[in-house]
């Protein structure tokens, strides 16, 4: 192993990697872009209010080789994302597990 899949180009120090947070949300925007794929989704908090989250995956080339393309997720899709959240902004996440709209986990790393 040693190809550390979570190794981000811009580093992990901004994230709290001591705990994994899981949220369910509805996709608002999906950007299949360099250097890391971006997800924006809305999550209902405990008070029933909608909060916008931003999250990132690995590079689009790596996801392409895991079967993704720019249409893999679309606005309105239900997702469940687990990962590390930003130390300073609770609504920014580095995803390391993602359940897609069909209830199945999406492959996040090239083989």
């Amino acid at each position, binding site marked *: *192993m040693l*190809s550390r899949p979570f*190794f981000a*180009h*811009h*580093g992990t120090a901004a994230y709290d*990697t001591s705990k994994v947070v899981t949220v369910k949300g509805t996709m608002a925007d999906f950007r299949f872009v360099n250097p890391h794929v971006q997800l924006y989704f809305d999550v209902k908090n405990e008070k029933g209010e909608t909060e916008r989250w931003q999250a*990132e995956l690995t590079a689009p080339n790596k996801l392409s080789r895991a079967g993704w393309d720019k249409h893999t997720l679309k606005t309105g899709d239900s997702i469940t994302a687990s990962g590390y959240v*930003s130390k300073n902004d609770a609504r920014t996440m580095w995803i390391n597990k993602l359940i897609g709209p069909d209830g199945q986990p999406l492959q996040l790393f090239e083989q």
Partner: protein
Amino acid sequence: MLATIAALCLANALRGQTATQPAAQNNAPAKTQSAPAPAHDLTGVWMMRNPPGSNRGFTNYTFTKDPPELTPWAEEKFKQARASNGGEFTLKTTNDPVLTKCDPPGVPRVYFHPYPFEFVHTPKYTLMLYEYDHMVRRIYTDGRPIAKDPDPLWMGTSVGHWEGDSTFVVDTVGFNDKTWLDRLGHPHSDQLHVIERFHRVNFDHLELDITMDDPKALVKPWTTTFYYELRPNWELGEISCSGDYLDFSNFEK
């Protein structure tokens, strides 16, 4: 966390293995499962993959477990470096010129990007195409000698030749002194001479012996071996170090 990552990687690796290989061979060393290397041919897309069971946790950011012995000149320069190793950094805490300025990475710093590279052979030169930021190296194989007094370039000036059927030896000089050797920020001078020996062990496996020689920066040559696997079904994509890369401070607020 690392244990979890290791477990995930292992699980992925095992899934890949069972999908393509008979179960009986799963425990055999990978090298014995591959066809022989073709002669004088490195064509294809290669991805770094350390041998199973090896514990080389440093290969994402430096060449050896122990640091190289630096000259006083290099020690002084190294003090200015704020590393981008191990992922534990932000764009505000590192001064890695690749990350903060989109400088070309140079050789061999280019091998610390977690993306594949491709060899393309032509009659007079071999191209090395790196997925990271469209980096290209043109390695002349037309018999010309290594350049004596080349102009400084980010990726240097290279010549290559074959030793036997399966080892491609690349000599590179003519670097500027702006790049780092690794993600820890070990420096080099414009006297850097890099020798890469690409040894195709068999059809699927490549061992890269790297020697960095720099009398101004290194007390003695710094050497390592990196390991690669052929990815016959992969195509190089695009990783562009554009402004997008530098916008990540947005996520570090």
